[in-house]
């Protein structure tokens, strides 16, 4: 196994690749009760049209998420309950770009790891179990339909993008999941759940060689194919629409401002873009920014307001939002401050302080095993080493930040999504 040490953050990572193509990462953590395993596939809700064995295939919205629910079924029962009964706390999630299965346990870690690798690699679906799950997921979809955060986010995605499937909800719709059959699930499992399209990350007080041996023992020996993906035609930078709005049962307007960003979509360049974007958004609208102070003191935002940079499946974008009695006033101020950041760059003292704070928050994230393993797997899929974040952040300059603002926070490229209270709308 290869061992890499990261001096500044005092972390180490062992890595290896099995003959079947699966990368294995182990981050040793001494003195903890729990160990954590994270088994992920490079398959998210946006991977609906893909090429495998030379053929292009189209699938309904929501398959990746449906598959995540159904993978826990085994021929003999349910892996969620077996893991839980064995002292592990298991869970899984589907994001727009990956699906991951994970557990933490304070005992019988190796046994639980075998269960995890086993159920994720061996599918077991029946028409009856698929039908049953349609009922459960339909309720999950209904639940998200009542969530204003969900609605404001997808409102923004639809305003920013014309084609990319990030526009559509991860779980799909009640109608789209009705099209899913056991066959759909088997074929998508075959395409995306082969070891060459997956990654295993473990954090805890464990023996790295044992982890590799267990994975080699449980998983299929043959490498697979990395499927091709199609997210539709290239997006143009200008938003599809500048505003979207919906009415819901909320107490005051909720809003999200966003703009697309250019730049690398993989490799170290993507990590650098993500860090530059995060620093730029913190300087523009973070809790120490002049804009934040101004808006807060004017009563236009409260402490829920936040700004971030995101990237996923061929797209990257800046977002900022919260709740406000007057979202358009916030948008106007946000545009002005963004133009100002692009033209004059950040205040040098503020730049130094905010960078220090961001360094601290990268370090803080290393307390969390989930965060470590997620970053590790996602970094592998996108071609970068997430542990290099602190060093890359150190090399980002004030000019990089103003360049980012000029290129990616142009007022003309911004869109806003708003959820208005039902009571207000009626007046």
């Amino acid at each position, binding site marked *: 196994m290869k061992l890499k040490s990261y001096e500044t*953050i*005092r972390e180490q990572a062992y890595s290896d690749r099995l003959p079947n193509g699966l990368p294995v990462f182990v981050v040793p*953590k*001494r*003195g*903890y*009760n*729990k160990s954590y395993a994270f088994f992920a596939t490079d398959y998210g809700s946006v991977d609906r049209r893909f090429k495998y064995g030379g053929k292009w295939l189209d699938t309904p919205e929501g398959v990746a998420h449906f598959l995540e629910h159904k993978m826990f079924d085994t021929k003999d029962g349910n892996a*969620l*309950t077996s893991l*839980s*009964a*064995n*002292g*592990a*706390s*298991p869970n899984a999630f589907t994001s727009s770009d990956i699906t991951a299965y994970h557990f*933490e*346990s*304070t005992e019988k870690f190796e046994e639980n790891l075998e269960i995890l690798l086993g159920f994720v690699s061996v599918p077991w679906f029946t028409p009856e179990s698929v039908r*049953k*799950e349609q*009922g*459960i*997921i339909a*309720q*999950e979809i*209904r*639940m998200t*339909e*009542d*969530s*204003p955060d969900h609605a404001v986010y997808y409102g923004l995605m639809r305003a920013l993008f014309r084609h990319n499937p990030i526009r559509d909800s991860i779980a799909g719709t009640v109608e789209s999941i009705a099209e899913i059959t056991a066959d759909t699930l088997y074929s998508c499992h075959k395409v995306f759940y082969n070891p060459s399209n997956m990654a295993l990350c473990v954090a805890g007080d464990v023996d790295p060689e044992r982890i590799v041996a267990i994975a080699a023992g449980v998983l299929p020996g043959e490498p697979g194919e990395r499927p091709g993906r199609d997210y539709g035609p290239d997006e143009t930078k200008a938003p599809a629409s500048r505003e979207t709005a919906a009415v*819901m*049962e*909320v*107490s*005051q307007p909720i809003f999200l401002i966003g703009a697309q960003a250019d730049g690398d979509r993989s490799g170290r360049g993507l990590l650098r873009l993500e860090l530059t974007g995060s620093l730029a958004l913190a300087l523009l609208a973070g809790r*120490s920014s002049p804009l934040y*102070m101004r808006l*807060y*003191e004017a*009563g236009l935002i*409260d*402490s829920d307001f936040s700004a971030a940079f995101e990237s996923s499946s061929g797209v990257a974008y800046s977002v900022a939002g919260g*709740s406000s009695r007057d979202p358009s006033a916030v948008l106007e101020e946000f545009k002005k401050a963004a133009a100002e950041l692009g033209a004059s760059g950040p205040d040098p003292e503020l730049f130094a302080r*905010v960078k*220090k*704070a*961001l*360094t*601290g*928050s990268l*370090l*803080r994230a*290393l*307390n*969390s*095993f989930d965060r470590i393993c997620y970053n590790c797997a996602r970094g592998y899929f996108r071609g970068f080493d997430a542990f290099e974040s602190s060093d890359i952040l150190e090399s980002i300059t004030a000019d990089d930040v103003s360049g980012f603002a000029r290129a990616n926070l142009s007022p003309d490229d911004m869109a806003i999504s708003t959820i208005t209270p*039902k009571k207000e709308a009626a007046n």
Partner: protein
Amino acid sequence: MSDVTRQIVAPGVTLTCANTDKFKTGCMSVNLITGLDRKTAAMSALLPRALRRGGARHPDMRAVADALDELYGARIEPIVRKKGEMHCVGFFADFIDDDFLPRGENVLEKTASLLGELLLMPCTRGGLLLHDYVEGERVNLINDIRAGINDKRVYALDRLLENMCSDEAFGTNRLGGEAAARAVTAKALTRHYQRLISESRIEIFYCGAAEQERVASALTDALSSLPGRGGGETGSDVKLSPPSSGPRRFTEALDVQQGKLAVGFRLGECMKAPNYPALMVFNAVFGGSVTSKLFLNVRERLSLCYYAASSVEKHKGIMTVSSGVDFSKFDDALGEIYAQLDAVAAGDISDWELISAKRAVITSVKSAMDRPAGLEDLYFDHAVASIKFAPDELAALADSVTREEVASIASGVRADTEYFLTGESA
């Protein structure tokens, strides 16, 4: 392994110190504890927010934000918790451990000092808390109270408890009521502040790599102007039985896609001499885990919902169950929830269910010890409930809980109130 000590640093002020070097951050909380009271809850909730706006040496948000950035992004946030009928307000701070920073940064001392300043040296004019800060945060608090409606799952539980405990202190929202929040003035808040700071019981918690002497000395310096106090008694009034006429039902309609069902129970007899490990196992058997009867029946077997879960409020002796279901399925879900509780009470618990529930409890206790905020919450909970055993002991006791103990708890549990959130057109 963490090494935990508890010491009285001043009359009515206790410091709990969990010493461990496994994290990259340290955390600290200072909590003022009073009885939950409908009349003052909003003021108590408002207090740390207003104080957070600035202190004598860092008089505005700009100065506080700059100081925190300079401390490598340390955070000091208002914290407002409801534990049974105790209302706990103050600040929670977390910061990068000095071991990861250049020598002599002393982030622990500097963060403690800023926290002490915000708590004890507020910006005042003419002896009153600054009007602008009180007013700004009063509006924010009212907005937050109203925003309770945004998350329908939480909203349904809040409405359930408001209705169920309408004549008990527990029925008061953590943030207080809107009308009470509206009435707050700088003068009233200043008086409330002075009372809280000089009379309430204070619990301080630290978790991190620094030795106890260093922490105690940092905090003693930071909190030196804290007046002495008696350390008044607080506790929760536990009501054992529901109305004799059977559960009350409340229904409310909103423009929503999914119905929410929330049921409140009184834990009953078992609260006379609470056996906390057994309560935790009971909750995991009934509805608090993925191997629970609610998860396996209401969700997996009947596909009625995405979630159906129970939660126990051990200080007050209440259990709640919540689920999101189709409007037409309220009665099916409710019937199944009651049937599963009856099954637990009848001792219809397989070995597998009991063992799985214990494993879930043990894992959650042990893994909480692996997060700074998890440790803080665990020890804070213990401090206010006067639970004497350490997490490891709690885990061992959970492991020895019997089927009979679980069934006996369930047999004393009584439904008190049902709450339905339904659609407008349903």
